[in-house]
């Protein structure tokens, strides 16, 4: 249900995977590469993943959401490697009988994936700088529902979300 790909994401193939004549609702999200980051023009962008853990963590998140929202299906594909502005970095789609559950699941999936799936964005800027981006550009968001974070380390809740909140978008 969670995949990584170095090739451009084919929306049609993803949509076709999520098809069920009993389901009336389909919601999808695309995260597209933007031409700027905090006012700096982005000239190059790469995503790096820790594949094995990204897939297991991504699947854990999607399976929990599928059950929580009673979905017929939920799917996420994340790009790795170099991307151009406007390309799709991540695609999430869900189908179900009720549309509200689909909206909630896709939105929550994106939040949780941004928080805990080991994928990193490396950006190069027009001024010659580059950075390993520290967190999502949407750091104003409320933390996603805690209830499905059961796969986390036994030492306590995964602190990434909290760190993001406090630090915003610090550069290294």
């Amino acid at each position, binding site marked *: 249900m969670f995949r990584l790909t170095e090739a451009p994401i084919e929306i049609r193939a993803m949509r076709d995977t999520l098809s069920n004549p009993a389901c009336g609702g389909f919601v999808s999200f695309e*995260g597209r590469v933007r031409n700027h980051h905090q006012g700096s023009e982005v000239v190059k962008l790469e*995503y*790096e*993943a*820790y594949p*094995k*853990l*990204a897939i*297991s963590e991504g699947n854990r998140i999607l399976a929990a959401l599928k059950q929580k929202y009673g979905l017929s299906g939920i799917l996420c594909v*994340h790009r790795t490697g170099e991307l151009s502005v406007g390309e799709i*970095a*991540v695609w999430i789609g869900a189908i179900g009988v009720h549309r509200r559950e689909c909206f909630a699941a896709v939105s929550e999936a*994106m939040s949780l*994936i*941004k*928080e*805990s*799936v*080991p*994928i*990193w*964005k*490396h950006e190069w800027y027009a001024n010659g700088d580059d950075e*390993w*981006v*520290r*967190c*999502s550009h949407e750091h104003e968001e409320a933390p996603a529902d805690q209830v499905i974070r059961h*796969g*986390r*380390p*036994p*030492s306590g809740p*995964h*602190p*990434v979300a909290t*760190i*993001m909140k406090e630090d915003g978008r610090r550069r*290294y």
Partner: protein
Amino acid sequence: MIETSVGLDVTVEYFALFRSCARKSLEKIHLDESAPAALYDALRARYRFPLAKELVHLVVNDEYSPWDKALQPGDRVVFIPPVSGG
């Protein structure tokens, strides 16, 4: 021959920021103690990782692990800097 070492060997993999700092993806390391925090502190000093341990997650053998876990010989260890997918 007499083995004087009481330590253990582990493999450390580097991703993203840590790979950039270490300028390598993987290395074998001999440890004198089994605490992952000691390993992180040593690597942080060696490669000038710009992140306190509190900002980093520990993964052992492809699973998130608590920092008080004792490393075993042959473990594959990954330190996870803050993620930024999506």
